[in-house]
């Protein structure tokens, strides 16, 4: 009985102990608070889904619990509330962090093959299939 109680105590201590993670002491006002205007909040959400968290790089800032993601969410919400266009906010972040911060790829001199290659492959497939069908008809 005492052993079980001891075990439970240890489990509870670990469950209650936050020091293993890096806890921030304060955060931005709109990190975890939605905008009161539902239309603006929806606009902010849509943008946040397509911005990368700089610390947990597989997550969007809408999904991430990292402190910097909270600051980025607040920045997005504050700027949307101030009437700024979502794409202007995205550009502002790209100007500082590069294209990597955005999940929505842009067509640039570096990325155009990504967009051109699927079209080229579809065209190649159409060409090959046409030859094959024609041969089948003979």
């Amino acid at each position, binding site marked *: 009985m005492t052993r079980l109680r001891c075990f439970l105590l240890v489990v509870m201590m670990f469950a209650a102990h936050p020091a293993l993670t890096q806890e921030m*002491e*304060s955060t931005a006002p709109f990190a975890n608070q939605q905008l009161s205007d539902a239309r603006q909040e929806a606009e902010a959400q849509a943008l946040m889904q397509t911005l990368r968290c700089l610390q947990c790089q597989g997550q969007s800032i809408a999904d991430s619990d990292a*402190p*910097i993601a909270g*600051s980025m969410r607040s920045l997005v919400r504050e700027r949307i509330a101030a009437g700024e266009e979502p794409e202007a906010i995205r550009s502002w*972040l790209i100007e*500082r*962090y*590069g294209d990597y*911060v955005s999940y929505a790829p842009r067509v640039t001199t570096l990325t155009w093959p990504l967009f051109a290659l699927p079209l080229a492959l579809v065209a190649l497939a159409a060409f090959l299939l046409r030859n094959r069908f024609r041969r089948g008809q003979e």
Partner: protein
Amino acid sequence: MTDPSAPPANARRRSWTIWLPLVLFGAFIVLVLFGLFRPADRNVASALIDRPLPEFTLPASLPDHPGLSSQDFADGQPKLLNIFASWCLPCKVEAPQLAQLAAAGVPIEGISVRDRPEALRAFLAEHGNPYDRIGADDSGAVQLALGSSGVPETYVIDAKGRIRYQHIGDIRPEHVPLLLEKLEAAR
């Protein structure tokens, strides 16, 4: 329809094309192994290198210590701008190196990110205070304006208030000479 010379030619062509998928697969494995043993650098560097420091004005983090604004740079002397927080573990690791740089006469300005005065005071009491000024960036907005992706980060700002270099992560003893060199070049 049937050409007697065609089947042998077809068979000869097939004899080497049959290896093509295996070769492609082998190339793919080599690519994966390359990525596995030499992972890419995942640090997100600021795109503001060689551009002027963005304008900001931050209140003092501690009542008895001056706050920080972008006006405090560009006074003809290169400086270090250190982004830190009391809740950040690597910031404790770099404290001795910052103290060493401060002792060498390097002006160091601080921005405390998402912090609280009590926690910050305890942190400085324990690890020393190398900062001339400390600005409180409680929302992290200035950190984002600087293109900083985490704490700690250290920027070398030149004599005209331009960002010259960004050091991502804690400053280890082996990084100190490079920072001194960058500061010298930023005169």
